[in-house]
């Protein structure tokens, strides 16, 4: 069975999704979703522990060998991303039960879980496959189900937000498929490894830079790189709370992975950064993303929207690391990929708890919650400290590596701007904390602490924030190894 792990990782959720849709019982379909995500976590851990040492697992679908058939290919890079996705899913799914019961109409819940599992399937599939067209297929699976999930939000605006996301996401996917098509025309292959061997021969043509441009824009859209992030704030704000927590912590991360895979593995770092000089575009955009969207976040009145803008800023940090095009920078970016999933997951889950009890996530609705929902708000504070980058939290680890990488590249001012971004995070997190802890609560609204079924997953993530902030050994080891693989450095 362990030989089939790469494909089972995707197939088990793929089978679970239609079953969840067929079963009209809320509890059962939820249980199936839990099972699927826990399976994914188990499989992800199995894969990661196999490839940690540097081994590469290749699985030929249908028995067709690599360049002809679809190949699933796992190395430290995607095993890492798979683990992130699976870990977040296996915490977010248990959390979703109560939250979804409150926020989604009951006759749609089993379909909701079906879409949820499909989204997970798509994200895992993108990460595991070694075939560029397969990437597109799974991208569509995850995106379409994500649109559906977001449209299920309580607010009327959820529908228009999902629609906008659909338009933008589809354009992004279309651009990606155009890029893939151009590459296929020029090389006649869709396998990543094969492409990376054949592409250098046709690098000088016009088609390949154009393909590269389409892919860059497509990925930028999908991962919400400034200024193509405009679909994200509304989608995150109006989606059901559990969906926000899940998607915010995974979807953009997988998009970043796609970008890394194409830039580094398919095109090769030399082409992307030395010939195309994509870093000249990514670095300024990342910095503008960090500063501008943090500033927007400071002005937000809706905390989910605030966190959404903060996510765009955090994506800026990841892309900043990538744009340094060094092992250190990539390590920082990949670390932040994981760490940001932990902190944003925790923060959005905390907001889900508030939504569950208070019914609003506007800042003024937080008044006095520090007393009324102590565990929820304490979790928010820890998550917030992590976003800021306070030591003993994962946020610090990311920032530390990022600043080190920037300094190693001789970019002092970049390191300084990263610090400025942290200070801005202090402001927007503090705005929430101040209202929650220092404003008096409105009298007699009977708000109680969130149910245990939501608090436990939330605190699992909070604990992970602290644990991996203190003991960063595993995360840095894997991120470094993944960065080395991407840069083509063997150690």
């Amino acid at each position, binding site marked *: 069975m362990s030989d089939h792990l790469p494909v089972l990782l995707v197939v088990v959720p793929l089978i679970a999704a239609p079953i969840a849709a067929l079963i009209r019982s809320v509890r059962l379909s939820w249980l199936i979703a839990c099972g699927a995500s826990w399976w994914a976590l188990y499989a992800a851990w199995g894969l990661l522990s196999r490839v940690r040492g540097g081994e590469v697992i290749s699985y030929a679908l249908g028995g067709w060998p690599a360049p002809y058939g679809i190949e699933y290919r796992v190395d430290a890079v995607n095993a890492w991303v798979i683990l992130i996705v699976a870990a977040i899913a296996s915490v977010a799914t248990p959390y979703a039960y109560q939250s979804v019961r409150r926020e989604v109409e009951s006759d749609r819940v089993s379909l909701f879980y079906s879409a949820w599992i499909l989204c997970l399937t798509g994200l895992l599939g993108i990460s595991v496959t070694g075939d560029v067209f397969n990437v597109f297929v799974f991208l569509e699976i995850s995106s379409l189900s994500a649109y559906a999930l977001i449209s299920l939000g309580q607010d009327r605006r959820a529908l228009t937000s999902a*629609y*906008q996301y659909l*338009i*933008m996401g589809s*354009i992004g996917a279309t*651009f990606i498929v155009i890029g893939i098509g151009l590459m296929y025309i020029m090389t006649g292959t869709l396998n990543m490894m094969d492409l990376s061997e054949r592409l250098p021969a046709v690098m000088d043509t*016009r088609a390949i*830079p*154009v393909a*590269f*441009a*389409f892919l*860059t*824009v497509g990925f*930028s*859209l999908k991962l919400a790189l400034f*200024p*193509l992030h*405009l*679909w994200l*704030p*509304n989608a995150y704000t109006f989606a059901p709370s559990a969906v926000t927590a899940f998607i915010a912590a995974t979807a953009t991360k997988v998009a970043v992975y796609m970008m890394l895979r194409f830039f580094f593995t398919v095109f090769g770092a030399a082409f992307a950064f030395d*010939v*195309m*000089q994509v870093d*000249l*575009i990514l670095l300024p955009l990342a910095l503008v993303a960090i500063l*501008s*969207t943090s*500033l*927007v976040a*400071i*002005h*937000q009145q809706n905390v989910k929207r605030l966190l959404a*803008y903060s996510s765009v800023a955090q994506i800026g940090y990841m892309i900043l690391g990538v744009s340094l095009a060094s092992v250190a920078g990539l390590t920082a970016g990949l670390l932040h990929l994981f760490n940001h999933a932990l902190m944003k997951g925790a923060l959005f889950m905390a907001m889900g708890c508030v939504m569950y009890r208070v019914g609003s996530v506007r800042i003024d609705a937080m008044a006095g919650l520090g007393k009324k929902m102590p565990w929820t708000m304490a979790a928010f504070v820890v998550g917030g400290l992590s976003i800021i980058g*306070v*030591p*003993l939290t994962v946020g610090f680890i990311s920032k*530390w*590596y990022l*600043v*080190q990488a920037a*300094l*190693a590249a001789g970019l002092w001012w970049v*390191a300084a701007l990263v*610090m400025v971004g942290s200070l801005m995070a202090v402001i927007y997190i503090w705005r929430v904390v101040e209202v929650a802890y220092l404003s008096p609560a409105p009298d007699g609204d009977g708000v109680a602490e969130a149910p245990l079924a939501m608090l436990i997953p939330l605190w699992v993530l909070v604990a992970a924030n602290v644990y991996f902030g203190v003991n*960063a*050994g595993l995360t*840095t080891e894997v991120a470094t190894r993944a960065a080395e693989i991407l840069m083509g450095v063997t150690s």
Partner: protein
Amino acid sequence: MWIDLPPFILLFVGGVLAAVTRGTLRKSIMLAVPILGGLNLIGVEHGARFQYEVAGQTLTLFRPDGLSLLFGYLFHLAAFIGNLFALHLTDEEGATLQHSSALLYAGSALGAVFAGDLITMFVFWELLAFTSVFLIWARGTERSYRTGFRYLVIHVLSGVLLLSGAIIRAQETGSIEFGNIGLDGSLGAWLILISFGIKAAFPLAHNWLTDSYPESTATGAVFLSAFTTKVAIYGLARGYAGTEMLVYIGAVMTAFPIFYAVIENDLRRVLGYSMINQIGFMVTGIGLGTALGVNGAVAHAFNDVIFKGLLFMTMGSVLRQTGRINGSDLGGLYKTMPWTAAFCIVGAASISAFPLFSGFASKSMVMAAALEEGHSIVWLVLLFAAAGVFHHAGIKIPFFAFYGHDSGIRTTDPPKNMLVAMGISAVLCIVIGTFPEQTLYRILPFEGGYHPYDVTHVLTQTQLLFFGALAFVGLQKFHIYPAELRSINIDVEWLYRWVAPRIVGGVGSLVSRIDGAVRGTAVSAARRVIAVGSRDHAGEGLLARTWPTGSMLLWVAILLVGYITFYLAR
């Protein structure tokens, strides 16, 4: 030594336990934890341990050596005395919060001095601020809330500087180990020095101390006075011993606060100023860098924690018993608070460095070291400051609180635990002052004997102090001495509490009140930046609004064209 553990762990555990227990159990924990921790340090083996490899750097949680152990003993002692002093607190006074944060605060200080690398140091550096601010906030007044906030901001800033310095040093030297740094002209060394300087209340960065300590609770000030600045002194002694600039900084620190202290009305703020003055002696000693100088500095730090703690305890008792702390409201309390008055005099004698009191044993080391190194001017300034400190801390505090004009307030001595705590400190002051060579000098980090009690030292110091007192008597007789007035005196904080809010004013309601015409061009430019930022980033601003799908598509198209052009142009 029974268990080889970094000392902060025990204190942290105690802090958490104090938060969840009540009554006698908590009181026992409060007293037992510092005692056990302190005993556990006795006979501890030197050398770094509890080291963890993270990302190619070594974090060292426990590095006992001569220097750090002295502070280790000191902080346990201070925690014990402070806890004893605060033992009576009731729930109305925020006992849980104060007890718990006091232990955590002491633990952070211990963590910082035993940290073997700059990153661990930084973590505890920030924890110092975050655990202690509750001792200010527990006062529960609007003013203390705001003060606590300013305190926090300044200390977080100090931490950020330390971290930046550490990162830069890691880049330059490849190591984050905390040893002698010295000013070699590199940016990292400067940032770390500034960070330490802020915490040590260097001139112009000193204001957080006189701003926050007087606003803390009656018992909280005792802890605050013991830890934060002493950790900074430890840092300077470890990292910057022998940096000549510190000699002059220290000299300035000894001199300028005493002017403020003379005209300050809030007696705890007077103590704050005299604290800066005492730290000045330590900074000078560290700057001299000789064995005598650094020994004197850390010895003075040791003594300062005890006698300044004692003075803060007596003033805390006065505040608790009368509800007042301004010199203009007090007087004649010796009648009803005789014990407190007596302890206050012991503390005053110690800080003034009277022979047989602890200050004498350490202050004279620094001054002797200054002379040895040939710093005549600095020595004269120190001498001036030594006379001045007697004037404001040695005479002014006891005189205006306990003697002088009878304010008519009738009260009693504070509860027994407070008296006992003060009594222990007072005894320590006298014992260390009388037998320094048998007590304090034995745990000093550097070799080199020093004998404070020779005829010259005793005579000259007594002359200095007596004639200082004579001046006080004369000034009172001729009514030259400034009366205690209900007032405050502006200090550096004026810049950020008065000037800055009126200039920047970009935030909140202030902005509408201030007429833009007054501001200079630079300020209006800054305002424009903020305004532009807000316009685009707030509410329905350019970058914050929900965009129509069509406009988003336009962006996509523009970017695509841009990228293609860019790539093809390669």
